[in-house]
Each structure stands twice: as C-alpha cells, then as structure tokens.
C-alpha cells in the first residue's frame, strides 16, 4: 500500500494502526457539507461509545479515532462473523480556518455529528465600495 500512500498522502490514515489495537484501523463512512458559517461532518461509527471516541484538531488536521465498545463477550462460540473489532480512524485536512473553541460534537446511536465553525477571518464578508 506504500505505493498508494505515496501518491495520496491522506490515504495513509486508512491503513495506519491505532495504538492499542492489533488490527489496522479502518476509515469510517463520512459526509461533509459546507455552509457559510462552517462545516457539518457526519461520521458513521457503529459500536463506538463516548468513552471510546477521541477527536483532536492539530496543525490543520482533524483526527477522529473511535474504539469499539461492543466487542464480543469472552467464551462465546462464533458461528458467523461479518463485523470487525478494528478501531475507526478518520483524518481530514483543513486549511486551519476552523475555530476549535466553537466545535460541537454529538454522538448518538453510532453516528457522530460534528459542527465545525469557521473562524471569523475565514467567513465571507461584503466589502463596501466607497
């Protein structure tokens, strides 16, 4: 995968390892919409509770790591498995125009809604011509 990663640096997030997980992290499904005041980010994180969620914004890089809480209990016999315990990791780059103090996050039923507010300097302004 190093070939892909060298071509597309942001794709590296899809295969990097979370610290405490032996399994490679996977990129969750997500959607970003933009408005005048900011961005709305929706990330699908099934099985992730608030305790397992970590959101950091540093150096123009928004990183969302979600560790799954609902792991299979010990001692059960698995008859069929399609899910994985791998953590979710999503790394999105931005041009540092987001005001981190105004970021709002809500996690409900395995879906994270993140409201990113644009810094005042980045909002569109009307300039009056004199």
């Amino acid at each position, binding site marked *: *995968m190093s070939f*892909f990663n060298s071509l*597309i640096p942001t*794709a590296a997030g*899809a*295969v990097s390892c979370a610290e405490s997980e032996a399994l*490679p992290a*996977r*990129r969750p*499904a*997500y*959607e970003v919409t933009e408005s005048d005041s900011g961005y709305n980010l*929706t990330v*699908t*994180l*099934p*099985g*992730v*509770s608030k305790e397992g969620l970590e959101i950091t914004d540093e150096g123009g890089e928004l990183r969302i790591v979600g560790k799954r*809480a*609902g792991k*299979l*209990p010990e*001692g*059960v*016999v*698995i*008859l*069929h*498995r*399609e*899910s994985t315990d791998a953590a979710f990791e999503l790394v999105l780059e931005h041009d540092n125009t987001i005001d981190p103090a105004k970021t709002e996050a809500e996690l*409900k*039923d*395995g*879906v994270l809604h993140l409201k990113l507010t644009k810094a005042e300097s980045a909002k569109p302004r009307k300039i009056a011509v004199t």
Partner: protein
Amino acid sequence: MHLINYRNASPATRFGGRYGTQDLENELNWLFGTALNGFVPPVLGGQFPVDLYEDKDNTYVRAELPGVTRDAISVEMIEGSLSLQASRKEKTAEGESTVSFNRLVSIPDEVASDKVTAAYENGILTVTLPRKEESKPKKINVSVN
C-alpha cells in the same frame, strides 16, 4: 449447516479470498469514493454486517445499524428465521429520503422464540435468542428496547 441467507454478495466478501486483506479494497473504495464524490452515499442501503454467536444458554445475533431510531427497527421471528428490518431518514439535496435495510438470518431450531429479546446501543442491535428443548415454528413480534 445453512446459517445466513445472502440476498446479495456484500461488498466485504466480494474480494475475499483473492487478496486476503481488506487494504486494497479500502484503497479502491477510497479512490472511487473520491472520484464519485457526492454520488456514492456514505452507507449503502440494503445490507449491513451481521454476527452470529452462541454461549451455553443463548444464541445471539448482532447487527450494525448506526443512526437508526428504535421505532424504525423491526425484529421478527418467522419460521426459524430472524428477520431484521430497519429504516433511516437521510437528508438529501432534494429533501428527505428513507433508506431501508433488511436481513434474514436462519437460526438454530432449538431457540425459544417467545423469549427473544433485543437491545440497541451505540448503533448496534443485539438480539438474544434463548435455547429451548424442542422447536415450534411460529411467527411473533419482538419489541425493541
């Protein structure tokens, strides 16, 4: 033993066996997802991952259904199969659309279908199917907590 009725080959199994790793699939999904930005929905309707496991007392069916309200989940036992149905409303550019999900899972005969319970937490639906001595095929509705 036939456990799961596949309606379609799920994306997770399509490349299975040939590459032995999901890395390439992830990369391809990412590349196509980027190229078709705004065209591919975040989560495709229809299929969702299901796990089937058991301990000495119960059989469990676990399904990933993020972003679904409890009212929109329907769990039914139909003649030895567990039917899972759910729907989710999504906002689109044209307004609101409803995405439906459904799976039919064949379960062991020795399940006491009148004692089935279901719980939904963090976007994961877990259905607990207690065992019984003899099986009696019947259809019941199960309330979701």
